[in-house]
């Protein structure tokens, strides 16, 4: 199992490594959700979906199934 941005905890940051291009809306890429960019989970809505991220300085909310398609390297928290 790869770590995806859906596995982040609130306030945790990571760097996007890759994603399944067929499952990700182009709009999300255009907002800066691209490999190499940093991503931070801000808030999870009640019942676990959607998730609110800051990626590439854009503040966006996406659904869980989309978030599960984006793999990430979690920044070591210290």
């Amino acid at each position: 199992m790869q770590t995806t941005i859906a596995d982040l905890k609130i306030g945790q940051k990571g760097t996007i490594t890759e994603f399944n291009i067929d499952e990700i809306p182009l709009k999300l890429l255009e907002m800066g959700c691209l490999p190499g960019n940093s991503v931070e989970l801000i808030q999870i809505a009640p019942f676990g979906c959607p998730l609110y991220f800051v990626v590439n300085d854009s503040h966006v909310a996406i659904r869980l199934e989309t978030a599960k398609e984006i793999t990430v390297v979690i920044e070591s928290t210290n």
Partner: protein
Amino acid sequence: MAKEHIKVALIGNPNTGKTSVFNHLTGLHQQVGNYPGITVEKKIGSCKLSENTKATILDLPGTYSLNASSIDENVVIELLMNKKDENFPDVVVVVTEVENLKRNLLLFTQIKDLEIPTILVINMSDRMKLKGIELDVPFLENQLKTKIALVSSRKNIGIEKIKELILNYESLSTEPCLNASSIDPEYFDKLRKAFPNQLVYKLWLVITQDVNFLNLDRNEMKSSFTKSHADLRRLQQKETIKRYQFINDTLKVGQKIDHSKASDIRAKLDRVLTHRIFGYFIFFFILFGIFQSIFVWSSYPMDLIDSSFANLASYAKTHLPAGEFTNLISEGIIPGIGGILIFIPQIAFLFLFISVLEESGYMSRVVFLMDKIMRRYGLSGKSVVPLISGTACAIPAIMGARNIENWKERLITILVTPFITCSARLPVYAILIALIIPQKKVLGFISLQGLTLMVLYLLGFGMAFFSAFILNKILKISSKSYFVVEMPSYKIPLFKNVAINILEKTKSFVFGAGKIILAISIILWFLGSHGPDKDFGNAQKIVEHEVYSNSYRINPSVIPNRVAEYKLEHSYIGIIGKSIEPAIKPLGYDWKIGIAVVSSFAAREVFVGTLATIYSVGNNSDEEATIKQQMKQEMREDGKPVFNFATGISLLLFYAFAMQCVSTLAIVKKETNSWKWPIIQLVFMSGFAYLTALLAYQLLK
């Protein structure tokens, strides 16, 4: 040799304050229309640049990029691709926002690739200090090959600079900022050779999406430059990465952000407003406040309008020379206009709240909070906005469903929105409630009438969710959920934007729906005051004959009223009403109500106006009573009031569920591109309304 007339297109991402810039440039010199064939709003304004130069400014729908994912966004591309379009701009003004410059510049670099002179507006520059942002403007201008205006639409700074840049647009460079075709040189070279007269970027846009462009045969072009869908997506991704590389490199030098200086109000507010408990609490509190204030505040101007039109009508009747024309004015036109104007207070208040919620950035948080709950009903978090604005009017609400990416969720939203209690139902509810529900208080402080109104609203929402739930089970449409919601930073709404929005919406109601209402009022007046000669023309004689032959029972002083009633019954409208009476009698309606119900199929709000017209035609007294008083006085043959409890409830339910709005049906047809859905809506909703009204009357009578 400056041009006298410069065409400008205003383009930008959503939430960049593009509309504020537009409002500042054009003030009230705006015209709102539609693009031919589609219901996308088209806003054009004019602006004086110098002594003899004028600019026409087109405010295009907000878009994140030139890769369109909705009809609104498509409008932008189709315009920029078509040099022959009458609105094709001489110069494009791209509006960006200082806090999201990186993302906003993506669209800018795409537009630059189209080789149109382009000005870059960086809005909200007053927040730079607060956010610890510094910009090297000359460097950015050089890298981006453009001229920059630092603007604060909030503080009205920099608008003159935009005008100056527009005036001198001919000196702008039309060179692209980067070479996007380097993502696959071989492919783009082939493309360039095949169509040497066209810009490669334009060709690329044609290949990747559904835009009609030039006379190029898209199919031919697609077949010779075919790539699999996945390959195209991969190239689009590469293109986006390439653009961001350029933007990042540029901003690394041209923009300095000192994060330590940034005070983040957004994070703090988000923590509260999207909180899993407080978030909902705040949302419902706001909703409750909105409804409460709409009904309390708007009742004063509404009562005022109601009574002043009644006074005006009686003034006209007594002071103008008697005759057909005076009757038309006092019985047709004045009540008709009153029936339109009475909606203005509520519509204005609703749009006030909706635009404040949207402008402040709060609406996106509601979308975020509600998505999961709404999905259980086959809706999207984004359906919240149409459902709430449906309380004003279903038409803008259904258009607002456009930004729902998933077709099934969007269709269900469109289909159920007309169940939401719109402002057109409100006067019908208001008058019926006032007639049948006593003015009592429950528990000492909750008004029973107010409570009934709330129940009717909840009924509308409940029915919308119930049918969404059913539709979600029935409809077999599978489409991917591409749910992406931007969470904009919080802003205090600009008074000017809110005011212009309210003015525009109210104006379009008064002149749009108003025309129909007025026309129907006049037609009804005519049908009500004319009839076939045999009975109608001889009314006086027939009634006199009847009265004198029963003279021991009836006082001759009632003759004038009897004549008026007899005339109405035998007028054209009476004949129509009588003929539909069998169908509506089981619901508890007489033929007069029947006429009002039938004419309401053009638009619900016609109901009150119709009754007003019918009763003022049938009323022979000099005193012009308000509509409510007239309805109260209306008696059945057995001497009981027509508007009793059972009839009232039956009517309330009928109006809550029936699809009685031609404009809504027309908009559903446009948005779903088929007659199938509006017809299903009409049949299902009205059938359901008939059955519930029937059941209610039979149980209560």
